[in-house]
């Protein structure tokens, strides 16, 4: 490891001849974002455990090293330095926040450690043209417009009120949605920001009430989104409500309660429970960790699986020996048709997932995940 406080890495892989291969995760494990961050970590952990046997057969001990970036860019960068200093680490699954992913990936790039992001939707993450940065989720400029298309064309929204949480994620998504919706002929009657961590959104909702739109679009996560739906319904605002993949959580249903009717969200994940394989996977997850599956659990799982697949490919290409980071990096980018539990993965030359699809779901009270009611591909 980066320091003597951790057990020396060279001797812990005694069981396997080829040595140790580590996969790191970086996501917030403490603080307000920890649920999501932990889902990523647990997903990756499950992947590592699932593949550990295969790697043992190849002669390697597989380990997961979780890092807590606390949603803080400075910590992310410092952790990244620790990660790159450990020669056994061949890839990173992370981050949750684009604001942390961007500076941290600058470090990964210098040391050629591939990163597979389960959840960074900001366009800049891959638009900087780094060789190491990949993501399996949809970009804001895909998900937002897809949502807009559905809202305007399928739901028939003409007047739309956009609310966002003033985070990089929320703003990116909401802006993309707004622009696309305008192009499609909808009128944006309001565009407001709220503060993450607060619980009272009546102020903004009063404005919504005055404008009386057909649909509220929310760019942000479920913690605030759930409350906004609930408080809107309390105010008698019964219009449709829509948001992005960050609403895709069982907590959303819990928080909003019966108010969740007429709530839609876009997600890159196909409904896990639709396939047997998916159902099984979800069951295993719940048994293993005693927690409900979150969307990010499966993204985390798939990201790690993709990464491990690439490592495996690189090992084989390297004649069974431990590959270099550059080899793994290129192997990740070369992945073209990996079938994960929630999404198919194939990277384009920027590191974006070509197969990223956007599915539209509708929530129903007391049920998670929602009902899949639409599917959009990138044109």
């Amino acid at each position, binding site marked *: *490891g*980066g*320091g*003597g*406080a*951790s*057990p*020396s890495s060279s001797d*812990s892989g005694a069981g396997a001849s080829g040595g140790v291969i580590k996969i790191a995760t970086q996501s917030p*494990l*403490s*603080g307000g974002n*920890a649920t999501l961050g*932990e889902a990523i*970590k*647990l997903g990756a952990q499950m992947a590592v455990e699932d593949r550990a046997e295969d790697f043992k057969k190849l002669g390697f001990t597989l*380990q*997961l*090293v*979780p*890092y*807590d970036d*606390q*949603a*803080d*860019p*400075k*910590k992310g*960068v*410092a*952790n990244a*330095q*620790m990660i*790159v*200093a*450990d*020669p056994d680490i061949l890839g990173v699954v992370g981050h949750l*926040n*684009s*604001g942390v992913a*961007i*500076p941290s990936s*600058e470090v990964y790039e*210098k040391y050629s450690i591939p990163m597979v992001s389960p959840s960074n939707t*900001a366009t*800049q993450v891959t638009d*900087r043209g780094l060789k190491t940065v990949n993501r399996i989720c949809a970009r804001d400029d895909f998900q937002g417009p897809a949502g807009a298309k559905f809202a305007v064309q399928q739901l028939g929204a003409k007047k739309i009120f956009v609310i966002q949480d*003033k*985070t*990089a994620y*929320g*703003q*990116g998504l909401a802006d993309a949605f707004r622009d696309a919706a305008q192009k499609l002929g909808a009128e944006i009657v309001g565009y407001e*920001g709220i503060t993450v961590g607060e619980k009272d959104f009546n102020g903004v909702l009063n404005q919504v009430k005055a404008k009386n739109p057909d649909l509220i679009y929310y760019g942000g996560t479920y913690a605030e989104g759930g409350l906004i739906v609930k408080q809107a319904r309390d105010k008698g605002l019964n219009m449709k409500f829509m948001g992005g993949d960050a609403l895709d959580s069982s907590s959303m249903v819990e928080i909003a309660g019966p108010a969740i009717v007429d709530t839609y969200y876009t997600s890159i994940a196909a409904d896990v429970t639709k396939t047997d394989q998916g159902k099984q996977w979800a069951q295993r997850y719940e048994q293993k*960790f*005693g*927690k409900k599956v979150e969307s990010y659990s499966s993204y985390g799982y798939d990201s790690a699986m993709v990464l491990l697949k690439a490592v495996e490919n690189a090992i084989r290409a390297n004649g069974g020996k431990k590959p270099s980071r550059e080899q793994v990096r290129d192997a990740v980018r070369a992945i073209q048709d990996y079938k994960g539990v929630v999404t198919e993965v194939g990277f384009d030359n920027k590191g974006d997932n070509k197969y990223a699809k956007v599915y539209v779901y509708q929530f129903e009270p007391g049920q998670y995940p929602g009902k899949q009611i639409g599917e959009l591909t990138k044109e």
Partner: protein
Amino acid sequence: MKAIKWTFPFARYNPWIQALILAVYTAGVLVAWTVTGQSVLWFLLLLASLLFLYYSSLPRKVQWIWAAVVLGVILPLVASTGPAYESYMEVATQMGIYIAMAVGLNIVVGFAGLLDLGFVAFFALGAYTCAIFFSDQANQFLSVHNFPLPGGLFWLFLPLGMFIAGLFGVLLGLPVLRVKGDYLAIVTLGFGEIIRIIFNNLDKPVNITNGAIGISSVQPPELFGVRFTFPHHYYFLVLVLLAAVLYAVHRLENSRIGRAWKAVREDEIAAQAMGVPLVRTKLTAFAAGASFSGIMGVVFAAKQAFIDPTSFTMLESITILVMVILGGMGSLPGAVVGACLVTALNLQLLPQLTNWFNQLAAQGVISFPSALSPSKMQRFLFGMLLILFTLFRPKGLLPARLRRYDPKRMAELAREFRPGMAGAHSSLSSGGTLEEPESSPPSDKSVQKEGMSP
């Protein structure tokens, strides 16, 4: 005094012996480091040698040179032998940045006694100044479209960031200094939040800061054709800046301005009655503190290559305040140690500790329920440590100490300046017939100029 002797038995020895002990200690740590391979512990113990150095009675010049050699040569050299080189450099760089901020905040809170809970705003000002012009962000609102600026211009932005932050320090200070005590705390807190929120929203009507998305691809500085891409580049940059900052604060603290700060802290009314202009003194404190923060903000933006408002939250201000108070308010070495400690804890020790637990758990040595997973305990541990530190060192780790004057020398001076005080209002500065302080040979080596011992 008993307590002081207990804390620094070291200070009693003769300087040569001190130097020897220091050298042996440093060498020991270095040997241990190279033998055992990479270790955070040795890294921190090496830094600790500088603390001993500070408390030694070696002449100031020797101390500066020694520290320069340890930090500028030995540390990077030894660290570079292992794969974690850049990791150490990164941590050391962040330490340096925080030290400068803690030292700056120490001026405001420790010296001048003005509780500031929004200090990170000045850091943000410096950082955004740099980020906007060294990325293509400035193209968004300026009609000349030749941004990002070339990396060579970075060096101009250091003083610029310092100036802008200092200016805002004064602008904030002017209205705000009417309010006192903890009211000031809340006003500064408000100011910090206002700055952050504005940066978070200034993507419309004119896109200046790119809002919550942040500014990415900030171009690195360049010096003699070297592009600053690795942490060790920034390490050396921060080291130089930090030396300048520490030197400046040291000078200021022991000057008329520094004494005025402390006088204002102790008793505003008495200070005024003794001829200390209240507002100007407080404003200097605000401006000085802010500008150190601003200059480091510039460096930070370049180092991160990406800036968004989440780096400048209120929690950040509180963290810097924790460094100052934990170290010992009004104590320069305290602020330095506090900053080192908190940064090391946050960036190195706690993550390493949790990694270690995680590995043990992965190897099945111990097991945790998922709610108690060690990676989630960093904040908890940090909180515990804060409580324990304050309980066991309630005055801070290195409390401020009085400047001591040598009675013998004071007596000599008294004889020289017998107050045959007629002819009042003589100027203190006119004429230079007096010997300069340095040229009078200190009779006792341990006594610094002006009869001060360290």
